[in-house]
């Protein structure tokens, strides 16, 4: 059941259980159900207060959707709800093995920037690494409830994601 006074809990806002693995189609349905009620177009003829409140609720549901839809922001949000700050700006310490892998990837990207098939192999590798890390995040959050560990994994995922975008840019430059 939705709890609107708890607008600081996006899961409850959409009537979802507070966990990392969520049913994305259920999220989508809940989002549309809420938007059908609160979207400013629904209140175009309402009083100014009604319009203002509708706008606030529409913004809230858009923010909640954006946060929960993406696994990284969803994970970071769960950490925050449990009092764990990922300290993204200040904490950039990463395990050596992870950093080595990142350096390998970057070298590979620089060397094969013009070679589509090599880049596609690299995409596979990056995707696999992302999936593996996500599996670990599921265990850390939904299993062990270890949010410190989850925050560390998610910080790594941000690096992987950033690299995936650069890789994607390089590929689309070749198309």
């Amino acid at each position, binding site marked *: 059941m939705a709890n609107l006074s708890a607008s600081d809990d996006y899961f409850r806002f959409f009537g979802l259980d507070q966990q990392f693995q969520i049913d994305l189609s*259920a999220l989508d349905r809940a989002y549309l159900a809420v938007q059908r009620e609160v979207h400013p177009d629904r209140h175009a*003829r309402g009083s100014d207060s009604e319009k203002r409140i509708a706008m606030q609720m529409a913004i809230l549901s*858009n923010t909640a959707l954006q946060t929960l839809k993406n696994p990284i922001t969803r994970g970071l949000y769960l950490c925050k709800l449990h009092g764990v700050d990922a300290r993204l700006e200040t904490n950039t310490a990463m395990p050596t093995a992870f950093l080595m892998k990142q350096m390998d990837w970057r070298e590979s990207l620089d060397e094969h920037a013009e070679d589509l098939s090599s880049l596609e192999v690299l995409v596979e590798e990056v995707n696999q690494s992302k999936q593996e890390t996500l599996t670990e995040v599921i265990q850390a959050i939904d299993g062990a409830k270890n949010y410190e560990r989850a925050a560390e994994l998610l910080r790594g995922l941000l690096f992987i994601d950033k690299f995936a975008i650069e890789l994607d840019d390089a590929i689309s430059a070749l198309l």
Partner: protein
Amino acid sequence: MALLQISEPGKSLAPHQRRIAVGIDLGTTNSLVAIVKDALPKVLPDSKGRELLPSVVRFLPNGQTQAGFEALESVVSDPKNTIVSVKRFMGRGIVDVDHIENAPYDFVDEPGMLKLRTVAGDKSPIEVSAEILARLRQLAEDSVNDEIVGAVITVPAYFDDAQRQATKDAAKLAGIEVLRLLNEPTAAAIAYGLDNATEGIYAVYDLGGGTFDISILRMSRGVFEVLSTGGDSALGGDDFDHRLYCWVIEQAKLPPLSLQDHRKLLLSCTHAKEQLSHNPLARVHETLTDGTVVNVGISQAQFFEITQNLVAKTLVAVKKALRDASLKPEEVKGVVMVGGATRMPHVQRAVGDLFGSKPLNNLNPDQVVALGAAMQADLLAGNQSKDDEWLLLDVIPLSLGVETMGGLVEKIIPRNTPIPVARAQDFTTFKDGQTALAIQVVQGERELAQYCRSLGRFELRGIPPMAAGAARIRVTFQVDADGLLSVSAMEQGSGVQASIDIKPSYGLTDAEITRMLQDGFASAKVDLLARSLREEQVNAQRLLDAVQTALNSDQSLLSDQERVAVEQEMKILKEVLNEETESAILRKAVDHAAKATDEFAQRRMNASIQKALAGKSVAEI
């Protein structure tokens, strides 16, 4: 004997109860106005049966203006005072407009937005557009013989904040209440989707006279969800004309032409381009003022070749939009073609080849945007029964960011984020005792601020003096459902609300609009006092109606005591509305009554969300 009109239960309101709202397509080349009549959208013709109003305005020495066909006649003879394609200049400075040297006007550079020097004085593109809008409003009012409650005005999806704000200001100047600024491809999707009961992922390829948009939408029963949008707000059919014009000059080895000859030859090229959509050959045949005869033939193949790079430019934007939506061309079920320029066969072919399907053309590409806007206007005016209502979820087309140290851009709201949206960003001071802070807001995708569109400087004043880095100023950037930005700020630590001095580099202040009206905005000689009173009366009536509807359906959310209090407030407001002739006093009464019903409005919103989510979970079982 009077006959009573009785409407069927659940059907739309009886005609006399309908609130008439129009859809306006304010185009680069032509503009249209449409309404929904007997449940069908329809473009309104003028008294001579013409549906397209040329977007042309001519300023005369006596301060009078001409617009549409009348002005079109003077395009060649009076080029400096006859403004065509003004949409290209909306919200733009001189440096922002490509090939501005080809335009025949005398430009005046002003901060934020250029002006055009005419015999009737310097005119902002907002004033020029307002002339067109005022004609369309008049046309609609004459046609339905009633007052128009408001309009949905379409803008290219790729318009930035400055261009949108300028459009809204033009409507204000023309005395039109804007119910919503609607993106052109989204409007087309509504017209097309509702007409064809479309389901699935669709693309709308909209090549107009001066702008190009591509939008990717997911359409499902009753929901139009924009997944991504892209385009070029300075690429359109005009560029094809211009390309052909340059080619003709080259072929005929002509010296630089006078303004009049330029216009004459350009019109001839436009005509040839249109012919080439149906014929394998066309001819540009024109006698210039000095008697020189220009006579150049061109084949379809040649025309396609010299304009191929323009078509290719649109395809780059299409691919980018697909990528933003994480989709491949084959996942798109169909491509809806919009805008007169999509009549060119090589455009059709290129789009068909990319998506591997035949483009959809079964609605008139000149009308489809206006028809969709009329449908949305009818919905917003409250003429649709709740079961038939559709929902439109649109996105912000360009990323919003702030300039940081070294001229870099820090993105605050990325492009294709659903609107309305708000994001907060914390700023701090870098000097001890610093009490003011300036934030440069930019829109665009480039990493360096100088290559993005500057939306203006926002100055924060009244920050309590503290040590460097101690202040925490939370700045909230909000983009509403029209795609328009507003900024607010608060000093968090001390709880002092920093006063914010917003100085956008474009957009009109209320004072400027008033001045323009007083200076004699030719088509809207209105009594300003009467107009502002009328606006407040509409506001008051809207509040009364809204609260009455709320009381009828959701009285149970109030205690008896609360209900009596609300009713009392409404009674007082009604009295003020009936008697008051001073707009400021009426406004105060409306504000007071609105405050008294805030809590009720919030409870209703919460209850409706609860109900919607509960309905969803029941359906799942």
